[in-house]
């Protein structure tokens, strides 16, 4: 087993829910490895089980067949070595930006806590908003706080569940750049669930394409080109067409923005 941290291996994983005494298969025979320091996107249409897969890695879902391993050990319940950014920023409305970021830092003493928080406020570019409440923040800012909170515990892996899904298109492009910057600084594994093909290509080393009923992995596409990436470049458009083809959306509409 590798000594690198932040490696997730999913082996022969299947999961079904029981609905009206009938089992409904959500995930079927999933096999995938996420390497240390990689940025991976999981895309697929609604109901393909991508969020369930993410929640299994997070430890919020148990009761499945097969294996989910973190650094060679089975995943049992949530842990501070995995950070999560939900689609709804899920900041606690009664805490300020600072207090929200410090939410999971109880084990540190006051001085360390202050240091870690200010470091992360700087990382996500929220200087000057330390004492604002979530209700005073825009969607993009709230999501920055959520990212800072998830990173403050220094997780090996950051899981992102459609983190930019609730933002408007322009803020979203800006936040994609920010995510890239943060990933390059932190050098940790990031696994993101998204609907947005452009977003996935822009950010990822590897795109996992899933389809639904039951949720299976269709294809894993490597995206080797250098960063920062140009959405208008021919290689970008080519790979996008290739991904869209997986969803039977052909090449006739190369400018389709999202699924």
């Amino acid at each position, binding site marked *: 087993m590798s000594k690198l941290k932040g490696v997730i291996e999913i082996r022969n994983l299947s999961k079904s829910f029981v609905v009206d005494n009938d089992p409904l298969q959500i995930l079927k025979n999933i096999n995938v490895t996420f390497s240390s320091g990689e940025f991976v996107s999981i895309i697929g249409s609604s109901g393909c089980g991508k969020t369930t897969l993410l929640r299994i890695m997070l430890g*919020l879902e148990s009761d499945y067949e097969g294996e989910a391993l973190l650094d060679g050990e089975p995943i049992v319940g*949530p*842990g*501070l070595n995995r950070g999560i950014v939900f689609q709804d920023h899920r900041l606690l409305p*009664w805490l300020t930006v600072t207090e929200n970021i410090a939410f999971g830092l109880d084990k540190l003493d006051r001085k360390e806590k202050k240091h870690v928080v200010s470091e992360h406020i700087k990382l996500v*570019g929220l200087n000057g908003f330390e004492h604002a409440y979530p209700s005073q923040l825009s969607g*993009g800012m709230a999501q*920055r706080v959520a990212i800072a909170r998830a990173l403050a515990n220094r997780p090996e892996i950051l899981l992102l569940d459609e983190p930019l899904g609730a933002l408007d298109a322009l803020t979203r492009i800006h936040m994609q750049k920010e995510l890239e910057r943060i990933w390059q600084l932190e050098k940790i594994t990031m696994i993101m669930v998204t609907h947005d093909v452009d977003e996935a290509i822009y950010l990822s080393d590897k795109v996992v394409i899933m389809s639904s009923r039951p949720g299976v992995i269709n294809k894993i596409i490597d995206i080797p080109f250098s960063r920062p990436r140009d959405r208008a470049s021919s290689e970008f458009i080519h790979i996008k067409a290739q991904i869209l083809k997986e969803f039977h959306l052909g090449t006739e509409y190369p400018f389709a923005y999202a699924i």
Partner: protein
Amino acid sequence: MDLDHKGLNGQIINDQIMNKNITDRFQWKDRLLGLILPVALLFAWQGLVNLKLYSDLILVPPLKVVGTLVYLAGTGELTTHILISLQRVLTGFLIGASSGFLLGLLMGLSATINRSLGPFIKALKQVPEFAWMPMIILVFGMDELAKDVFIAIGAFYPMVFNTYQGVSGVPHKYQELARVFDFKNIRFLQKVVLPSALPSILTGLRLSIGLSWMFVVGAELFGTESGIGYMMYSGREMFQIDVVIAGLVVIGAIGFIMNALLKVVENRVLVWNVSVEGGQG
């Protein structure tokens, strides 16, 4: 791009400040409108007195009520009554609200406790608080303890139901967040459950103290030798309607002040809650 949002946000805050100025500027006009009704009522009152349609015993002139208030305040009688009533409210409220809070918390945290206690408390709630009074008097006699118990019953219900509602209504998404951050037991309670339930708990607190104030007046009407309710009761017995009306003014004013104070506290504590609204009495 996000810089724009910061700008936008700043602007929102500025707009709020500007709006406040605007409302400040126009408030005197609104206040004037608000004075029309009380002034008209006072004139109507005085007019009725002048018409001498009713005996002076029933319809005293407004100025006489003011005179009585000043007189009662001057002799110190009023202050004594008020202090005694406030002391009773405080004792009864503390007993009722704290036990209501505790039970509501337990019911909110444990489904089993809720299943066994909830229906019982709801059934008890069906009995109007005043119906317990004769029983309390038979058991405890007419002394202070009887009043404390009675007021405590009144303070208990809003607190137990609102605390339960707040605690059991912690959104699932925050519970999940607590799991991710590995918060358990006391820390979960302290950092997630209680803050999330706070708006509801404070509403319960305000309702609870309002009801305590109502029940102290009720308890004192029931026969005692002191307190603002007693003052009104004896006014009625001796047919001094000016004393009765003076008492009404005083209990109204105290109720108003208590409610306003609690609202200030609520707004302070709940700065984060944009949907904070005046509850309904």
